[in-house]
């Protein structure tokens, strides 16, 4: 799969990777797993949850962008590093889900989450090889995936309507697609502008997710 990614054009992966470092919140929650764990400085568990989810999902966008840009630029080592970091971020997101819904949910979530990354791999390969059919299938798979993702979260948390989650994830897919398209076009200005938009949108997912979790487990996340 990785070799398929590596093709064509150039771009801004180094900048994106630096941006990942800049995007990390200094107030990560102790409830967040793995590399995201740190000294909690926010006032409440609910705030920790929100900032933690925001950081994880923002990191997801930047690392995905770094991976696609390196792939499109044919920079193998850089791609492999970004892809490994992206997967580590996926594992951390799953652990965050597991910290709320348990180990079984974590185990179910991770392959579901990785699935959309695989579809993005397909899309990027389609762009790199100028294969419109592959691009179209990947977009369709990604749109279909949003329904799955919405169903998962809705099943876990009745405060998260499936259609609302699906629409939010659909926007995530489209904003990240814009990044890949701009990278493939060799337009770093447009790519970085799109990256900022994609990053900002993740707040639209992280904030309601955190809010819904706090509502579902109000005693656990009661203000300290």
């Amino acid at each position: 799969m990785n070799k398929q990614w590596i093709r064509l054009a150039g771009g801004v992966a180094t900048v994106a990777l630096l941006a990942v470092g800049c995007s990390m919140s200094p107030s990560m929650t102790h409830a967040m797993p793995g590399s995201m764990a740190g000294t909690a400085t926010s006032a409440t568990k609910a705030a920790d949850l929100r900032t933690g989810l925001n950081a994880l999902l923002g990191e997801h966008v930047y690392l995905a962008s770094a991976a696609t840009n390196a792939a499109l630029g044919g920079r193998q080592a850089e791609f492999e590093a970004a892809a490994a970091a992206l997967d580590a971020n996926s594992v951390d997101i799953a652990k965050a889900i597991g910290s709320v819904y348990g180990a079984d949910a974590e185990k179910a979530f991770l392959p579901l989450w990785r699935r959309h990354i695989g579809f993005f791999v397909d899309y990027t390969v389609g762009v790199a090889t100028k294969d419109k059919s592959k691009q179209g299938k990947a977009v369709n798979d990604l749109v279909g995936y949003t329904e799955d993702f919405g169903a998962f979260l809705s099943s876990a948390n009745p405060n998260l309507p499936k259609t609302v989650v699906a629409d939010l994830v659909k926007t995530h897919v489209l904003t990240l697609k814009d990044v890949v398209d701009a990278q493939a076009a060799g337009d770093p200005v447009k790519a970085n502008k799109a990256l900022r938009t994609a990053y900002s949108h993740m707040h639209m997912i992280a904030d309601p997710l955190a809010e819904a979790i706090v509502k579902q487990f109000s005693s656990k996340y009661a203000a300290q």
Partner: protein
Amino acid sequence: MIRSVPMLAALFLAGSFSATAALGADSDVAIKTFQFKPTPIEVKAGTRVTWANADDITHTVTSGTPENRDGQFNTPLPGKGTTFSFTFSRAGTYTYFCDRHQSMRGEIRVK
């Protein structure tokens, strides 16, 4: 025997099946948050196992593994509240999975 389950494509060799749109009384395996629960389960030969989908998405109950489908059953459960039942008449270990989300796996041990 089959009600309100479009696209039913079940084959049955080791037993019989039924699928309904309503939750039945024998919901031995729940499909919830993209998991089969409980799994594995142990049952006696002749037991009818019922899967009940509690997720708002189509899952399937497909016999075998994605790498090795055995063709005994392959039934879509198109959304919350749909069920599928299968009677296991012979002893053995039966694996199954969701064909749409292939990381979802389960196992029935028939004694």
